[in-house]
């Protein structure tokens, strides 16, 4: 761990779950904005906690969903200095697991990040 990274982790250790959750929520909404910039106006996804990201009838197609998750992992890395691999770390969930909606994804990512920060 570099000295700079160590400082970030150290400063994150005191974060409350609510703080992380808010930060994650903001990141997800920003990624929705970026995604919507690439979508036709009438096919944009709603910036709501209940927005369905993937599955039958969801707004994103498969590759847009992949790009969304990759962007999310990168933002977690750059903003919180925590590395997560959501594909590996959701292995135990049946079906779409935490990927059902913005709300479920935010809750799961928050739990994962809190565990990683506290464990470092």
């Amino acid at each position, binding site marked *: 761990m570099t000295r700079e990274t160590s400082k970030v982790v150290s400063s994150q250790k005191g974060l409350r779950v609510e703080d992380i959750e808010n930060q994650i929520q903001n990141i997800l909404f920003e990624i929705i904005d970026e995604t919507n910039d690439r979508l036709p106006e009438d096919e944009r996804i709603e910036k709501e906690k209940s927005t369905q990201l993937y599955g*039958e*009838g969801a707004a994103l*197609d*498969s*590759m847009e969903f*992949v790009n969304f998750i990759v962007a999310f992992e990168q933002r977690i890395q750059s903003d919180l200095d925590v590395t997560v691999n959501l594909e590996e770390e*959701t292995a135990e969930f049946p079906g779409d697991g935490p990927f059902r909606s913005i709300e479920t994804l935010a809750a799961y990512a928050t739990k994962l990040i809190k565990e990683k920060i506290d464990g470092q």
Partner: protein
Amino acid sequence: MDNRSHYNHVTDAWMFIMGDNLHYGYFDNGDTDLQKATDALIDNFASMARIDEDTSVLDVGCGIGGPALYLHEKFGCHISGISTSSRGIEIAKAKSKEKGYSEKVRFYTRDALDNGFPEDTFDIVWVMESSHLMRNKGRLFEENYRVLRNGGRMLLCDQMLLKEFTARDVLRYRKELAAVEKSFGKAKVETIGFYKAKMGERGFTDIETIDISEQAFPTLIKWKENIQHKKDSVLEHFSEDDFNNFILSCDILMDLFKNGIWGYGLVSGTKQS
């Protein structure tokens, strides 16, 4: 690359790979000829409705006009074909003119989700392997329902999911899906059940679904053979990377078919207002 640009890019190369019909075939009775199989798919698909010389058909996503010209030759019906690919429409118009069918078989560069035709215009809306390119299936069905006459029938065939493809599956197969998207365009593939439910929501009745994955599968083998046999001609329109990626995509789709994830379905329903 959006799908309009994608199709303008691939159409000329695909004609060497797929022939006159840019769609899957229906391989039955040991038949191995791609042209016969793609015609057989049109025949099977057409059998889901009654078509004669007085029938008016809208072909949504008409490609280079192969199915429309075939249907006119077989039944004498009137056909309007639409596509967002200007290159496809250019080829389709030239073929129709060459065959002397321009009076009854016409092609237009138009968007399937806003086709510009008046309400109650067509007896049949024919959607052959174009729906997976449209994210908003509900809007597609709404538009098709609008232009159908009462009692008219929408026929739709396409690649479909045969079982749930979870979010984790998508992430696990991300490289494979990216390769397939690069060769075949941005797709939103749904289950046969989704199509049936969505059509029912819009008010279609007498909805019929048929899974023909087994009969469609050999198409991928033929496409892979054709691109390899006609490499020089294909490379006049494709880069080496496009060429190799197409072969990879055929292999990936074959695996998905074999694993019972990906397949091919026919769906039809009647407008009964």
